[in-house]
């Protein structure tokens, strides 16, 4: 039996040659192991954040304060936002599947800077720890323990974030460190994609997930420094009072919002682009057809990244901006819908006359087409200045955001987890359980967030721990939806974990996919990926009568078709 990358000793380490499995994992430079470690850490934080969200939902089940007071509620949604955004979804897909799958897809043995990749992972962990210390800041005065956590929301708007007594600076430092990790990951992937493609593979022979990672990496590289410096300026402001964002010293608090969103708006495209990449991998495999419009999907990733830079102002329609600037930002925001629409039509056209197989990865992908379409189109409505004035900071924008990010990015992350689970673990999950979990999630997300569109339209503001009685019905439907979706999540993760432990063994390439990551000599793949680097003179999605056109002898990577 040949060895896989999960076996003892099957790894290169950053320092020395440790003998124990524990240290081999801690010091590993293998991109696949690092991706798994990212996933493990991220999903712990994900469930903590889900739990805080559940606490808020329970509080909101009836009007009035039941078991969370206003301050705790503020801290809860800040914690939820910071964990979900900075610790989970921004690093999310690039750190997990960018690491595990991207080098395999381009026929590389590892990323360009494996040691840097290892160091980046630990920088990420360090950032997480700093974020956690800001949570556990107890202030003990006269026997009374004060729980001290940032309550600003994840956007840290000045001047409140700088005047508040809570511990926002540590959170800012954490966001900066996590940003550094993000930059280094992006840098590593850019160099990898430019330098380590298998001979013969041009940019337009790359699988579309690699295109998504490529566009994402540019955003990570160019946008993250801006938020880094914004946070440094905020820290200088807090400790030394340099006045940058403080109107009482001639500063401009709206400048903070500009600088913050210059990063944070491209960041949502940074989340969604690799997710779209996963969709582009799954749709052709489960339609048994070549993807429709390969080049348009690849280039629309690049143009979403490009246009996404120029739209940040739509977060500031009510913050004080000239009407001309509002009009321009609104107009530019509409433009993002064009490449996104192109992708959607391409995916649907791929399925046309395909042989569609409704396995769980495909179910997740199809579900996302529905949920992300809702999330994306409601985004277009609030890109209009007029309607945004009405809907800004209501549940409508909360619902839009969660449909787009949970119903788009996270759903596609789950789709990718189902799709690549046999590759990563060499096991099958239970398909029936996976389907039940999907339907629970799909019903849950709609129950949870669709009522918020209506409540928001009727004027329910976001971030309030109490509300008027007429909104009760919407909150209660949401509350039920939250329970449904959480049971779906728990079931899904139980399925993954129990199947990894004692699932049925999966063969190499169980889905009959065409991309290179499946053509490894063993399942799961060995330490340095493919047995030999193949010469790539074929496209990534070539099917012939619903079978992959290109076939390899997996022990030598010679073409046998």
């Amino acid at each position, binding site marked *: 039996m040949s060895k896989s990358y999960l076996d003892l000793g099957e790894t290169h380490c950053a320092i020395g040659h440790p003998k124990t499995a524990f240290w081999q994992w801690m010091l590993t430079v293998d991109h696949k192991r690092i991706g798994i470690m990212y996933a493990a850490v991220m999903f712990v934080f994900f469930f903590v954040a889900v739990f805080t969200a559940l606490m808020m939902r329970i509080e909101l089940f009836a009007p009035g304060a039941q078991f969370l007071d206003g301050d705790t509620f503020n801290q809860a949604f800040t914690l939820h936002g910071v964990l979900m955004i900075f610790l989970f979804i921004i690093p999310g897909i690039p750190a997990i599947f960018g690491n595990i799958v991207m080098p395999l897809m381009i026929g590389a043995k590892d990323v360009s800077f494996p040691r840097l990749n290892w160091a980046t992972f630990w920088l990420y962990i360090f950032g997480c720890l700093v974020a956690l210390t800001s949570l556990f800041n107890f202030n003990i005065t006269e026997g009374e323990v004060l729980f001290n956590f940032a309550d600003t929301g994840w956007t840290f708007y000045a001047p409140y974030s700088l005047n508040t007594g809570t511990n926002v600076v540590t959170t800012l430092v954490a966001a900066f460190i996590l940003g550094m990790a993000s930059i280094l990951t992006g840098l590593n992937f850019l160099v990898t994609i430019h330098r380590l493609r298998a001979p013969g593979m041009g940019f337009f022979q790359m699988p579309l997930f690699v295109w998504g990672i490529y566009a994402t990496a540019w955003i990570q590289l160019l*946008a993250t420094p801006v938020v880094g410096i914004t946070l440094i300026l905020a820290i200088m402001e807090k400790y030394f009072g340099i006045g940058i964002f403080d109107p009482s010293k001639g500063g401009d608090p709206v400048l903070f919002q500009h600088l913050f969103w210059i990063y944070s708006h491209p960041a949502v495209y940074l989340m969604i682009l690799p997710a779209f990449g996963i969709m582009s991998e799954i749709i052709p495999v489960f339609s048994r057809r070549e993807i429709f419009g390969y080049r348009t999907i690849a280039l629309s990733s690049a143009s979403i990244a490009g246009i996404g830079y120029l739209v940040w102002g739509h977060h500031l329609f009510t913050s004080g901006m000239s009407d001309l600037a509002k009009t321009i930002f609104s107009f530019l925001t509409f433009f993002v819908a064009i490449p996104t629409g192109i992708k959607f039509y391409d995916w649907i056209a791929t399925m046309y006359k395909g042989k569609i197989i409704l396995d769980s990865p495909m179910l997740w992908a199809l579900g996302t087409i529905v949920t992300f379409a809702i999330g994306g189109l409601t985004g277009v409505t609030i890109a209009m200045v007029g309607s945004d004035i009405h809907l800004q900071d209501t549940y409508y924008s909360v619902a839009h955001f969660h449909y787009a990010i949970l119903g788009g990015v996270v759903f596609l992350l789950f789709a990718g987890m189902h799709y690549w689970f046999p590759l990563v673990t060499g096991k099958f999950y239970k398909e029936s359980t996976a389907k039940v979990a999907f339907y629970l999630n799909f019903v849950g997300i709609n129950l949870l967030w669709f009522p918020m569109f209506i409540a928001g339209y009727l004027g329910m503001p976001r971030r309030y721990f109490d509300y008027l009685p007429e909104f009760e019905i919407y909150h209660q439907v949401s509350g039920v939806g939250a329970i449904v979706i959480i049971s779906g999540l728990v079931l899904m993760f139980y399925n993954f974990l129990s199947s990894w432990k004692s699932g049925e063994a999966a063969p190499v390439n169980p889905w009959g996919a065409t991309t290179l990551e499946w053509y490894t000599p063993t399942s799961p793949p060995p330490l340095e990926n493919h047995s030999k680097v193949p010469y790539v003179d074929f496209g990534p999605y070539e099917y012939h009568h619903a079978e992959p056109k290109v076939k390899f002898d997996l022990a030598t990577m010679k073409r046998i078709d």
Partner: protein
Amino acid sequence: MSDHPYVPEIAVDREGNEYEVQGWQGDFFGGKFGFWLFMLTEIMMFGAMFMVLTYYFTLHHDDFINASASLNRTLGGFNTVVLLISALTMGLGLLKMRHGDVKGSKLMIWATILLALVFLGVKAVEWTAEYNHGIFLGLPALQGGLPESKPFGEIMFFGMYFTMTGLHGVHIIIGIGLMLWLLKRINAEKVTPEHYILHFNLALYWDLVHLIWVFVFPYYYMIGAGLSTGGH
């Protein structure tokens, strides 16, 4: 990681033509490319700060000119010259390394470290003088709403001045640390005339550090120069 010498793999196409596979090992171009990308992030970072500065310069034009006039142009100018010369020594060091003159190269790196220390020393003198005039981060003159407070624009100017020159100073200190590490690597023969990517990237870094200063200097020191000399 593997201690064996790296032998690139060969991929074969269907006609039997052979292609050398680019591995991550010994990828000079990749190392260079990665570092250029890193420098882009530095430019975005300092670029955002220059953007903030420009914005406030338009808001508080006269205050900025007045505050700039009080800076010490002699010391600032001297530091600019020191940093430009250090860029020269850094470049010469790299050239010597590439031509096999390891000893000369090390000498040049030491010269660069020395010049960087001179830069930091002068900076310390400048900041001390400013502190003694009551102008420093956190001192009352730079807080709003007090009797001794300076005007809005000057508070802003000095706040940004200390932040940006401070951040630049941190880059100089990191650069000195990296140069000492480079010397160690040269002594350990990990950096050689055949394998000098670390030296190359450090020279790039140093160029960026002095380039940032070339923008910082006129923006802070020179905009008020006309005022202090009574016009031109």
